[in-house]
């Protein structure tokens, strides 16, 4: 589709806290085009997670607009918002959040079940996604039998199996060691390039920042800096 995948205009989020209130986002206006590999950085409490949640339609702004895939989200009903997430948005969490009772295969299949794809198509796509994250041989394992790195790779497969326009990843490496962090960053960059999925991170992690092609620094709920990093393509020094 033409136009930006994400556009926010004066996005503001205020949490009332009794007598005073916390402004988590203060008139944030940002635009993300298809295929970006961008990250929000900034000190703790600067509003990174808040921004991702609103863009992911899990939260609503106090004022301002968020236009996702051409739709202004505050106008959406819960069902329509859920449809938008189902179709266009993948999530990767710091804590992996796999369904413990499902196998790896079933975890990855889940978004396709929600989309109502036929079984043959589901199977093809699940195996393809597992190939991307190099876990096709672990399809029948349970999440409890996987390492952290493997779990996060399953989560990536689950996020991209429906080929969404946007993947939102809040601190995806925070629970991983260096090797696993680089591993999943490699995979995500590959997916970003091959499938031109827009990746939007929130992170403190230098390793992640190294991979970013665009780094947005938030401070006190405002955009402090928005820079394109030309050096991003540099492969990481795997030790």
């Amino acid at each position, binding site marked *: 589709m033409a136009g930006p995948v994400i556009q926010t205009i004066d996005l503001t989020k205020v949490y009332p806290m009794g007598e005073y209130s916390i402004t988590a986002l203060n008139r944030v206006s940002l635009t993300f085009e298809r295929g970006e590999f961008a990250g929000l950085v900034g000190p703790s409490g600067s509003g990174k997670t808040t921004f991702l949640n609103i863009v992911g339609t899990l939260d609503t702004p106090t004022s301002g607009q968020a236009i996702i895939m051409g739709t202004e989200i505050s106008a959406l009903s819960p069902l329509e918002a859920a449809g938008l*997430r189902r179709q266009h948005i993948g999530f990767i969490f710091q804590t992996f959040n796999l369904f413990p009772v499902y196998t790896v295969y079933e975890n990855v299949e889940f978004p396709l079940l929600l989309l109502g794809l036929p079984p043959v198509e589901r199977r093809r796509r699940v195996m393809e996604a597992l190939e991307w994250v190099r876990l096709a041989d672990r399809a029948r394992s349970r999440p409890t039998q996987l390492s952290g790195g493997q779990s996060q790779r399953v989560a990536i497969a689950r996020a991209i199996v429906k080929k969404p326009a946007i993947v939102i990843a809040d601190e995806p490496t925070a629970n991983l060691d260096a090797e696993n962090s680089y591993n999943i960053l490699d995979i995500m960059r590959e997916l970003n390039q091959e499938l031109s999925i827009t990746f939007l991170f929130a992170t403190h992690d230098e390793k992640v920042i190294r991979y970013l092609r665009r780094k947005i620094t938030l401070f006190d709920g405002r955009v402090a800096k928005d820079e394109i990093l030309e050096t991003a393509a540099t492969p990481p020094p795997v030790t």
Partner: protein
Amino acid sequence: MKVLLKLAIRNLIAAGLRTWLNVIVLSLTFVVIIAAQGLFRGMGDQAARASIDYEFGGGQFWHPAYDPYDPLTIQDAHGLIPAELKPLIAAGQATPILVIQGTLYPQGRFLPVLIKGIDPSQKILSIPSEFLAASAAESEGESWPAEFTTSEKATGAYERMRIPDEIPAIIGTRMAATARLSVGDTVILRWRDSRGAFDARPVRIVHIFRTIVQSVDAGQVWIPLRVLQEMAGMPGEATVVTLAPGAASPPGNIPAAAGGWVYRDLRYLLRDIDQLVAAKTAGSATVYVILLFMSLLAIFDTQVLNIFHRIREIGTLVALGLTRRQVVLLFTLEGTLHAVLAAVLAAIYGYPLLSAFASHGWKMPEAFDSFGIALGERLMPVFTGGIIIGTVILILSLTAIISFWPARRLSRMRPTDALRGKLQ
């Protein structure tokens, strides 16, 4: 939604032991409730059947003054049998019964009784009235017509007779026990005739019958109708006319108020039994209400724990594209499926168990006669589709409610909080 159902089933099975414990307890509840309901249904059916056999036949016509609940009306509750009913009686399709009050004097005590006159040749009720005829024939060489001739039955033109010196009587086992009478005993019976004059005569117990119907036994003395009519000075009269079992209701071509008599159909006559069974069923519910409560509590507990432990998973479900309502539905389904599994399990082991129960019945302890409802020696439970379906619907809906209850708060949760593992 199919996906949610699939998901719910998977989650449930994955929960393993916990699920199965819930399911086993709930299936037990199913079986116990159905067994108890079946037992009471069987009780009611048995009591109704016995009452039809011994007392109500296929419905009754009552003398307008007759009220079985008011003993004071008995004095006036007699009258000539309506002409419309006579053809039925002649054809053996109905039998008249006359009821008057009297007093029995066994061994110096006195017992108020109802004296009931019954046609010894009747085949409509299971009261063994034939003993009255047989003994009448052999009584002291003195012959008196205990039975009516067909023409007498049809026309009501009765031949007067002399009251026998010793009146043959049959009584039930309860009456025999109260009066301490055995077969062959004689006892003085006193009554008041239609003109208010008292008279007394010995009666000889010619037979003692056993029935579960207390209302034809306790406090009752059965003698030949013809003799009673003569004793009471009420020739050709009766109090009720009982129709043969299976009679049309209302009986064809007989006006519902024949000769001013009131037609009482079986539903009316059996309503006491129905009420009693309903009361007994409700009274005994305590046991399975506790069982039901416990199993529902276990499911409720599971639901609450699940929602608490799986809050991150719930947030993830929303992130992946479920609405909060769908999450509520998912958890409600998960909880309710316990009842579905329990129903299946209950069917697997409960069916053979309850079938065996239904065919062997339940041997009642002697003490159960005082239970307030007439019971046979062996109670056969009756499991109707209504009982089974009703129980399944009851448990399913209660489980659905109890599953929905804790899940309902998820419709207000903030998915962002859920993802952080917080439930506000």
